[in-house]
């Protein structure tokens, strides 16, 4: 150690720098880089045609589409809800406000399997509410609707969590100025408040969507995992892996991985665009 310290002084060369960066990369290698890389290496090792034909399986395409569609609607709901909740909770002070904030944030801490199970207990054929509806031919569990419900539940706090701080720091005088200029509440919200929230809304939506697309634990319980009917992309990977069809599973895994890279890059590189105009 003392030699290292001495070297620093003699040459003005900071040995700690390459050493620590090297350690960091070395640690991340088996933990992050290699697993990700192996998806791509394995998936394309038999040639791109194999990859392509695995991807073009009707069930695979269906699974991807279902994931996109259910995640999309869960995102739409959660962004609108998050916007509304953030508005109410940052504009008004009332008894029980903190309790509501905690409750909204709670789903992050709940294991996804528990979330799926809870939904089953409520909406399942013998569930608390489900049994009231089942006799009338209404059954939401084991449908695409159930997947959306599960997605909404597990991604509930994400958009809210991004939007609320922006609301909190937004100067009230902007809205007051708009009011004195003659705008209605709605006009003020549309022309003044919403534009300031654009960045938060976009990143909240992307986060929610990315999280929903990957959801597995709750989906597998509430969807029924029926290939071609309620099987989402992550469920497809799991099913094909269990059947020993590694290539089929791998093709979808590559698509999902690329997709999350894409969302992440938007969040990362479009930061400036999202925040300032």
């Amino acid at each position: 150690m003392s030699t290292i310290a001495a070297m620093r002084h003699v040459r003005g060369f900071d040995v700690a720098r390459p050493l620590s960066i090297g350690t960091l990369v070395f640690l991340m290698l088996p933990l992050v880089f290699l697993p990700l890389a192996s998806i791509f290496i394995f998936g394309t090792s038999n040639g791109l045609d194999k990859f392509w034909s695995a991807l073009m399986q009707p069930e695979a395409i269906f699974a991807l589409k279902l994931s996109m569609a259910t995640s999309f609607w869960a995102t739409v709901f959660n962004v609108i809800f998050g916007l509304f909740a953030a508005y109410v909770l940052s504009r008004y002070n009332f008894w029980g406000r903190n309790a509501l904030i905690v409750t909204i944030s709670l789903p992050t801490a709940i294991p996804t399997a528990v979330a799926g199970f809870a939904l089953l207990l409520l909406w399942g054929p013998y569930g608390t509410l489900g049994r009231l509806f089942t006799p009338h031919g209404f059954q939401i569990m084991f449908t695409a609707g159930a997947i959306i419900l599960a997605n909404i539940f597990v991604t509930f706090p994400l958009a809210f969590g991004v939007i609320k701080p922006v609301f909190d720091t937004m100067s009230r005088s902007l809205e007051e100025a708009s009011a004195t200029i003659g705008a209605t509440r709605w006009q003020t919200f549309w022309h003044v408040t919403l534009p300031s929230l654009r960045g938060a809304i976009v990143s909240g939506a992307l986060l929610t969507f990315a999280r929903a697309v990957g959801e597995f634990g709750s989906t597998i319980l509430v969807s029924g995992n029926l290939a071609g009917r309620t099987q989402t992309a992550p469920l497809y990977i799991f099913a094909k892996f269990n059947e020993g069809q590694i290539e089929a599973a791998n093709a979808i895994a590559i698509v999902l991985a690329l997709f999350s890279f894409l969302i992440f890059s938007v969040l990362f590189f479009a930061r400036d665009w999202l925040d300032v105009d």
Partner: protein
Amino acid sequence: MKAKETLIRKHEEPEPARPAAAASVVGISKRFGKASVLENISFDVAEGEVLVLLGASGSGKTTILRIIAGLEMPYTGKVILHGRDVTELPARERGVGVIFQSYALFPKMTVEKNIGYGLRIRKHKRKEIRETVNELLSLVQLEEHRKKYPSQLSGGQQQRVAIARTLAYKPEVLLFDEPFGALDTQTRVHLRREIRALLKKVNVPSIFITHDQEEALELGDRVAVLNVGHVEQIGTPFEIYNHPATEYVATFLGAANVLEATVRKDFLEVGSARIPVEQDKFREGDCVKIVFRPEDVALNRGDLPPSGHARLASGRIEEISFVGAYERLRLRLDVSGADECKADDTPYYLTTETPERPSTKSIIATRPKPEASTTRFQVGEKVTVALTSFTVLPPQKGTKGTN
């Protein structure tokens, strides 16, 4: 209260008939919880007039502004704009223009869009909006910045955008909330001249709030001095500076000397000193206060006062300090003798807020540089103290704290 009001009126010069009020505040009071922040506030602003609400922080001036704008509800009282009672109307239906301290420009809109906002939400025709925006841009001289966003402008430019944005929809009254608070001194002085000129051009009645007395005197056609939720005095800058109605006004607007005196037949008695005065406001034996500015003090060697001045007393110079443009002297008056009014329990707390309040018998005088260099005084020297002008105030009764 009554006595004070009549006194205020006495001080006002016979004023020319002012045009009908463009905006009036009538008997406004406001409470937050149990704390009363405004008590019975009333004033008018005439068409094209600039009224400045001057007060220290906590005097309630911002609350008055917010009540006029409709951002706050008064507890009692009315707000009247051009004869229309708007007390119950929400902010958006009042048609007032507020220039916030932070300007509150919409960050995601360009300068043009900001200025056109009021017309856009009123669904005016595009062509009309464009024309108005162009006019206003040239009025505030920001044509070349029309496509910029607020964050790309300087503080002064942002402020001009904020003014143009309110002028676009022809407001009934303009309200400025400490508009220069966020700027450095030089810009501030420059901007307030610019804004004063602009306001005279557009002729919209305006209310400014500020805690800066210099700003108030320079900007206002009239100034209302506020003190813990009530109006101490309203008048032209000349009136409130030269004829303050209360000790608070006198001391808040620059430095002032306050001496307690007893009213006699044709003079005022300060200890053993006598100031000849002709007056009919007070009865013999009344305890009053004499208020005069440091620059109203004239000093002379020897026993005689400079001609045309009222002799106050002789005094001894205790301290001389040089303060840039003038010289400041602290003097101890030689006014030994029975002082009837000393016993009068003028509550101390009323006057402790004023930074330079001298003890009863010691006063501050200032002399301009030319005079200071022709007649030099030494510390300890004995001089004759005379007054160019002074104001006589009744002891503080019926003001805050007692009603």
